[in-house]
């Protein structure tokens, strides 16, 4: 028994050494390991699994299939793993993928703590991370690095986009329902800034704890403020339960809700009767145009759900990466990154999108208003597109960047 284990250990060690040596041999101008590997690091079973999860893996596979399954004559492989929303599991998986399995690019990496931890690994190993699912702006600010692209959205764009667009539509006075931790505070501050800049006023804010059991008390305070718009600076279950309570207490009759971080899965799970009339910003919607509809339907056939912005972003990021590899003729990370920052991104996800020096992918965002039940003609027909927010206006301007790569210059 012991001997067998020893042999097994020795063999795996030898294999390990061999792969390591092989990885080092790969020269620029070639494909390392004779295969291009895309790793989808996501949350398969936890809080965010509906946003990304198995759907993200499927989306990446669809991108590979659409690309033709091969790049520069080499096979493309997609592997997925569950980071369980633990930064240590995520970072270690990323290390192993880069060190031992020859993964060339990691995508999705949702959950901000995991995303930031993985971006550090990517920077250290000089491999590419295309983070789609994480919301934190830190990925392109304090924790930016030359090997990371932040692809689909961030809290700044959502807050800014929603605030700006709603003020323009006449929603001048705001009250915030804010999750009491850094994430909620920054959502609130970013939104409040644009509201004030646009000539609006902020009537007040109430801070609620994460995973609060009951929101009615906070909503009564929002109601008493008589503000036109109640901004929900929270996420996930907190947003869902605040929307439910807002309906129950009749707040939606006189005031409008603005979700600052709401995904289509949240709308789907709450149903239209509860959410109708609500404003929110999204980076992508399956029913925007023919191209998105085509992708949405194909995805639906596989997963029985419409894709979220994150899943669509994983598709697009994978495709963009493969195009870049094909363009430069190698999967060398430096060469591919240079190409990624040069080429325009045009696919069903983004039109004329581009990657900025800080790693931020700039693309248009959309202000949505949730349809009434009577206006919804088919399953997943949820949004009116009320405004298209040009990428330059949605995302944090480069001049405000706290990214060392930018500020040093």
């Amino acid at each position, binding site marked *: 028994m012991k001997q067998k284990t020893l042999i097994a250990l020795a063999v*795996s060690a030898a294999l390990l050494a061999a792969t390591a040596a092989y990885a080092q041999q790969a020269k620029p101008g070639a494909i390392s390991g004779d295969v291009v590997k895309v790793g989808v690091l996501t949350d398969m*079973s936890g809080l965010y699994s509906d946003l990304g999860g*198995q759907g993200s893996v499927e989306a990446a596979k669809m991108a590979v299939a659409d690309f033709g399954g091969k790049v520069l004559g080499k096979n493309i492989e997609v592997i997925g793993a569950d980071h*369980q929303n633990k930064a*240590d599991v995520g*970072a270690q998986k990323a290390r192993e993928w880069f060190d031992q399995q020859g993964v060339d690019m990691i995508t999705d990496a949702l959950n901000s703590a995991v995303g930031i931890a993985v971006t550090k690994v990517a920077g250290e190993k000089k491999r590419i991370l295309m983070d789609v699912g994480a919301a934190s702006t830190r990925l392109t600010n304090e924790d930016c690095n030359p090997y990371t692209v932040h692809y689909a959205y961030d809290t700044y764009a959502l807050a800014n986009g929603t605030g700006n667009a709603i003020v323009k539509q006449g929603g001048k006075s705001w009250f915030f329902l804010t999750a009491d931790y850094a994430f909620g505070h920054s959502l609130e501050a970013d939104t409040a800034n644009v509201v004030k800049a646009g000539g609006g006023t902020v009537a007040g804010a109430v801070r609620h704890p994460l995973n609060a059991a009951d929101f009615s008390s906070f909503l009564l305070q929002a109601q008493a403020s008589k503000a036109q718009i109640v901004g929900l600076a929270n996420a996930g279950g907190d947003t869902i339960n605040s929307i439910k309570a807002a309906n129950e207490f009749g707040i939606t009759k006189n005031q409008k809700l603005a979700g600052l971080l709401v995904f289509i899965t949240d709308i789907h799970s709450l149903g239209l009767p509860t959410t109708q009339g609500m404003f929110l910003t999204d980076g992508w919607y399956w029913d925007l145009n023919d191209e998105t509809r085509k992708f949405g339907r194909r995805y639906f056939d596989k997963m029985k759900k419409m894709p979220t912005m994150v899943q669509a972003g994983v598709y697009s990021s994978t495709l963009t990466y493969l195009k870049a590899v094909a363009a430069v003729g190698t999967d060398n990370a430096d060469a591919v990154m240079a190409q990624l920052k040069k080429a325009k991104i045009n696919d069903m996800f983004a039109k004329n999108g581009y990657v900025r020096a800080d790693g931020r992918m700039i693309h248009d965002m959309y202000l949505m208003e949730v349809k009434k039940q009577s206006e919804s003609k088919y399953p997943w027909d949820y949004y009116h597109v009320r405004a298209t927010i040009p990428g330059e206006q949605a995302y944090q301007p480069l001049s405000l960047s706290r990214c060392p790569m930018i500020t040093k210059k």
Partner: protein
Amino acid sequence: MNKQVIGYALLIVLGLLAPFFVYPVFLMKALCFALFACAFNLLIGYTGLLSFGHAAFLGGGGYMAGQAIKMWGFPTELGLLMGMFSGAVLGFVIGSLAIRRQGIYFAMITLALSQMLYFFCLQAKFTGGEDGLQAVPRGTLLGSISLADDLTLYYVVFAIFIAGFWMIHRTIHSPFGQVLKAIRENEPRAISLGYDVDRYKLLAFVISTALAGLAGATKTVMLGFETLTDVHWHMSGEVVLMTLLGGMGTVLGPVVGAFTVKALEDKLGDFGDLLAVTTGIEWFKTIGESVTIVTGLIFVVCVLAFRRGIVGELAALLKNKPH
């Protein structure tokens, strides 16, 4: 006695050679959790106190060490001590409150207090909320040896683990440890023998939390970040599982348990894929997505059928073997 020394020596040699065969980052992580579980075992296994809030000390130590090294510019070794110290302080505060009640209440109080610390860490500025405290530099050892290399760091982590393990071993086998066992077996009798039971319990609690803090600090240095996962009550449950699975009240049990649980967390997905490939049953692929379910199942099986844990059962087998 001689046998024991040889056994430990063999294990140390195994530990020294391990990074050449197994991925060192995984080993380091597992060692940190092993130290954490050993510290926890000092309470459950030798004092009979079930702390259901031990995540508070792992995470508390981790955050303090990270803060000290990253923001206050402490050298790495001082940062580690800082983590250990904050574990002890937290342990003193929480322990003083919790030992006012016994048994099941003790468990519930530690759980509630650690949940309070979770909310504190979530809201406090320096922890970075759900983004975590990131980019903690590994630094150097004694100002000269760079810890950036995984292998170098591994030996440092291994040394810390051995030191912690030795300390627990000493505690258990000292007269103090005997008193602790007496408390576990029969608290009223220990009181009637004139022991100030509460002081003994508190001291054991503080030793345990200090080591948990050290484990957290080491983990932060090793990974370069600390996140809310480590102060969440799931982590408190996880350390119970490690100890239970490995064997409560056995010296090596928690180590075995920690390695098993961490390997499971890491490799369950691959294992499921392997099963799916070999058996041709697609369903096995979903195992990787159900780490919590499998964890829960192990808990239930352990409690029902396997209460002595892996090491405990092995020891019982060896004892029963005719000589």
